[in-house]
């Protein structure tokens, strides 16, 4: 057995060393790049011939050999074959008949007409038009959501944070606000929504992060 391969003598590439360095892998960086395994002498020198031979053999075996027609074992004698058909028939008669036919019914001529029907359908099928959502409806929904978020945010600020601008004097809990919204707020009351949005713009600017924080804290998200 030979104790070295040609790859062993190769020096590790700089980028691999640099990567190990980045990872703080000092031990691996200082490892020899040799493999400790042994392998037979001249193994690689003869390998391609060896594999080519195996390939040739596998090609040959793929071609069916002439097996001949002589059987290597002795038969049971004539008496066995004489009684065999009767034995088999007796057994067949006692076996239940397992029909291979399909138990499911298909309309007459179904398969004959199927290809033509599919092609005809494919040709005449008009692509479905996209369902249009009215723009006003979308705006209403968006505005409703914005108002709800705004109201909740104001309440949170009043409950948890001492606001510098003390315009707001209302104190209400989250539950109070939820109850109020449920009882009084109509998602489709456009005037209320517009007023709410106008207030939002005029008094406080709310960042996306603050809204998200609020939603996370109050469990509305």
């Amino acid at each position, binding site marked *: 057995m030979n104790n070295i*391969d040609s*790859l062993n003598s190769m020096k590790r590439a700089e980028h691999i060393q640099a990567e*190990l360095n980045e*990872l703080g892998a000092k031990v*691996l960086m200082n*490892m020899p790049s040799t493999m*400790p*395994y042994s392998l037979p002498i001249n193994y690689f020198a003869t390998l*391609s011939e060896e*594999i080519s031979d195996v390939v040739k053999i596998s090609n040959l075996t793929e071609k069916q050999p002439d097996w001949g027609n002589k059987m290597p074992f002795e038969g049971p004698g004539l008496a066995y074959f004489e009684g065999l058909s009767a034995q088999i028939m007796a057994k067949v008669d006692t076996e239940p008949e397992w029909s291979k036919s399909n138990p499911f019914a298909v309309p007459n001529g179904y398969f004959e007409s199927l290809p033509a029907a599919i092609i005809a359908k494919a040709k005449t099928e008009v692509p479905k038009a996209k369902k249009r959502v009215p723009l006003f409806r979308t705006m209403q929904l968006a505005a409703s959501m914005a108002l709800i978020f705004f109201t909740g945010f104001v309440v949170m600020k009043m409950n948890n944070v001492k606001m510098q601008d003390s315009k707001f004097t209302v104190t209400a809990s989250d539950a109070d606000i939820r109850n109020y919204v449920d009882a009084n707020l109509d998602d489709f009351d456009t005037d209320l929504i517009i007023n709410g949005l106008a207030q939002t713009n005029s008094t406080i600017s709310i960042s996306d992060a603050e809204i998200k924080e609020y939603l996370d804290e109050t469990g509305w998200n």
Partner: protein
Amino acid sequence: MNVKNNKEIYEAPLNFLTFGRSINKNGQNCCMADWSQMDDGSLLSAFKIEATKERAFSELIKRYQERLYWHIRRMVVHHEDTNDILQNVFIKVWKNLAEFREEANFYTWLYRIGTNETLTYLEQQKRRSSVTMSDDEEGNGLSNKLKAEQGYDANKIEWKLQQAIHTLPEKQKLVFNLRYYDEMPYEKMSEVLGTSEGALKASYHHAVKKIEAFLKDI
């Protein structure tokens, strides 16, 4: 060397060993075709011609046998097992090379077949050993194989490294070997293992950390 006049070389009808005048960069007739200098694409073209099929295949084996051998051996440890797998890989290549798309990278394709064959072999070994061995014994299987290797020396750092590598899960071991020993770019590795480059980098980093910890502990 990318042999330009492939047609002249490959279509010579009778004895492919004695024909083969190629044309050098200056367009002059120069030398007998040097198979070892041909690029993979030229060899794959030669493989498709009956007269040059075996010669081209033999050259492809020679070109990749060592890299593939070590790729497999690092995973299965024993030479005999490696040899069996390696031969199976090349036989599969022989049978499927005609359908190989040349635009894809032959080397990547070869590594992928090698990796699949190796993982299949290890899976079979696991299934067999699970009948007769307990889980602990099974987990120590590769470690025991290492100890049975000729020249094994528990005090030598390179054997310790092999012990450390064999504590890794199989896929992580593959990634580590391909990067650390074969120095394969993540992009190629991604093609071989069918995993994203990001996942491979993360896997390699984990493997490095585990190996470092193992080596520091002993």
